């Protein structure tokens, strides 16, 4: 930790948040807000003179609220950076006339009440996301009495109580009477492996953490009797089984069964746990002085914000989705972004460090190469066709298109390095002036034609975006989920690429049913391109209805890369819908659309003649 504060290549921006990220692999522009500490970070020597003078006392978050801190504080004695800060929500002296006592106390004059948040703009070639996780808060469940009984604590609170740097200076006591608890019960899987409370997955670390805690207790207080209530103990890592054995040999009792109920003896404040020991099939009541809930790990509360910032997706468990679960577990689906630690899945310190080093190595590859190749799938504009409407500039999620100006005859230009290739502009341009390299109109139309040339009535034409719905289809495959054979997928980078005319064309060629699928709004790999897809589909539904074609024949679905199940389900449902579309209906549609095309052509010819 100290090293990080000292390394000459490393700029530490603590108390800072990433506010905005633009750009792409090799060239990310990042806006960071460095929050005002009101204490000059470089000058502060952490002498603590200021602390005594501060009249405000609030619960200390770092000590899990077991002790208090002042409004001017440092998180922990070994903090890096080693500087105090003022918590303005609690400080009285925002207006120095009111208080300002610390300012007087500080000899070095580090305190500055006028300090402002600082905005820092940086450019980087790669980003490593190591934003961590949250610890499950058991307040939402009542069976273990966490809300009602003081002597029921979480494993995080336990850490502070047993720590020499903790609020009790390492004298392990229980909250009600400040006496050493002699009988301690650990309850495993709190907030994990449950469809009722918390999360369905195994949090990976809590079994080992409890085993460690029991050993710590044995070390410090040999008389303490620990019991561990568990579903099954998962001690799968290197050296883990050894620790487990040591814990067992030291006399810790392991009882297979999770307490159904915990209640307090109001006199002694001791806790009673009723548990079915599933190895013998008997319900027993255990008395305990302290209960420790071994809480699980969950995705950060602000995960969605982070995802939005970096256009990342999450897997079903809410952690960040990797590029490939086996072959690219460290890479984000967005090039140039990598994961380290618990943002990706719950893991212990060793695994976090391992992944972090892997992420650093992956990022180094790009940085060392000094250049990256950008896939040739960007938009190009044919100004001969452009009529200056400017819709392309408006819809581009990356602001990669400069707005045209009819008066001065300036055409829009597409900044190649900024274009991500979603194709929204190409789909929205009524003049067809924009071409997507490698996803050109005729290339996609050729696929539609090939699919519908024979046995059109049997086929569902489905458009799927590369990142989410196509990947969801792949996941259905990897998971061997079975569904009817009638669907034919056409892959585009983004659902934003799916032009109205592709869909109309498919109906014209006799498609009974068309599906347009893309990412959930929050997952869209092209920021907001998917919102244009939604608009387009709504427009198409209206158009179809106007023409006398059932809007139901165009289906819309948002399927994430983690939703293989949903993909298969949608395919099954669509097949049922397809069966109900009659030959007659499809023929009628084909006629209607042929007529409509004639009409449009005639109108164009007339306009051309007039103009």
């Amino acid at each position, binding site marked *: 930790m100290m090293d990080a504060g000292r390394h000459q290549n490393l700029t530490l921006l603590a108390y800072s948040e990433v506010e905005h990220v633009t750009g792409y692999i090799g060239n990310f522009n990042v806006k960071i807000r460095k929050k005002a500490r009101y204490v000059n970070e470089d000058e502060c020597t952490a002498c603590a003179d200021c602390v005594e003078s501060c009249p405000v006392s609030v619960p200390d978050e770092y000590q899990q609220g077991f002790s208090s801190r002042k409004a001017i504080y440092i998180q922990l004695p070994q903090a890096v950076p080693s500087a105090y800060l003022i918590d303005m929500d609690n400080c009285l002296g925002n207006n120095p006339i009111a208080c300002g006592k610390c300012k007087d106390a500080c000899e070095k004059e580090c305190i500055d009440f006028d300090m402002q948040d600082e905005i820092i703009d940086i450019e980087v070639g790669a980003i490593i996301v190591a934003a961590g996780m949250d610890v499950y808060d058991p307040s939402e469940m009542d069976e273990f009495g966490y809300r009602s009984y003081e002597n029921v604590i979480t494993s995080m609170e336990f850490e502070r109580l047993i720590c020499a740097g903790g609020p009790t200076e390492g004298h392990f006591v229980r909250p009600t009477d400040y006496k050493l608890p002699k009988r301690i019960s650990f309850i495993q899987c709190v907030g994990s492996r449950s469809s009722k409370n918390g999360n369905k997955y195994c949090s990976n670390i809590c079994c080992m953490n409890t085993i460690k805690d029991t050993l710590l207790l044995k070390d410090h207080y040999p008389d303490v009797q620990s019991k561990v209530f568990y579903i099954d103990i998962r001690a799968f890592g290197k050296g883990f089984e050894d620790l487990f054995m040591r814990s067992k040999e030291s006399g810790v009792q392991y009882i297979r069964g999770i307490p159904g109920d915990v209640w307090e003896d109001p006199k002694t404040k001791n806790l009673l746990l009723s548990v079915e020991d599933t190895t013998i099939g008997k319900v027993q009541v255990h008395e305990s002085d302290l209960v420790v809930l071994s809480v699980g790990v969950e995705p950060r509360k602000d995960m969605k914000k982070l995802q939005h910032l970096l256009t990342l997706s999450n897997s079903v468990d809410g952690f960040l989705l990797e590029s490939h679960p086996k072959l690219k577990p460290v890479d984000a689906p967005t090039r140039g972004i990598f994961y380290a630690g618990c943002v990706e899945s719950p893991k212990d310190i060793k695994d976090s460090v391992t992944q972090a080093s892997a992420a650093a190595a992956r990022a180094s590859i790009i940085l060392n190469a000094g250049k990256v190749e950008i896939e040739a799938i960007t938009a190009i504009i044919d100004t001969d066709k452009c009529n200056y409407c400017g819709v392309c500039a408006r819809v581009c999620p990356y602001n990669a298109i400069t707005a045209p100006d009819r008066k001065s005859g300036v055409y829009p230009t597409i900044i190649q390095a900024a274009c991500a290739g979603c194709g929204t502009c190409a789909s929205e341009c009524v003049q067809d002036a924009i071409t997507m390299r490698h996803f050109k109109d005729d290339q996609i139309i050729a696929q539609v034609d090939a699919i519908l040339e024979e046995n059109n009535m049997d086929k569902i034409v489905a458009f799927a975006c590369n990142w989410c719905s196509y990947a969801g289809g792949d996941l259905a495959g990897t998971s061997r989920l079975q569904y009817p054979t009638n669907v034919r997928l056409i892959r585009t980078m983004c659902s934003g690429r799916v032009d109205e005319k592709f869909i109309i064309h498919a109906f014209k060629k006799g498609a009974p049913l068309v599906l347009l699928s893309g990412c*959930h*709004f*929050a997952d869209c790999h092209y920021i907001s391109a998917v*919102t*244009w897809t*939604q*608009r387009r589909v*709504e427009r198409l*539904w209206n158009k179809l209805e106007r023409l006398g074609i059932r*809007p*139901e024949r*165009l*289906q*819309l*679905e*948002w399927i994430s890369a983690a939703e293989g199940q949903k993909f298969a389900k*949608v395919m099954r*449902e669509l097949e049922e*819908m397809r069966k109900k579309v009659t030959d007659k209906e499809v023929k009628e549609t084909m006629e209607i659309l042929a007529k409509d095309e004639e009409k449009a052509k005639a109108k164009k010819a007339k306009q051309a003649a007039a103009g």
Partner: protein
Amino acid sequence: MAEKAKFKCLRCGHEYEDKYTPKVPQERTCPKCLSNSVRRIEEKRKA
């Protein structure tokens, strides 16, 4: 700004009311069948 509007699921046919903000596209899910093929139906068409 949020108004109420009627929606129809084009998968299962379910009709329901929901919040709606004009011009702001939103991800919609049919409460009955969970499909996203949800279409807003205008009741009084402005002719």
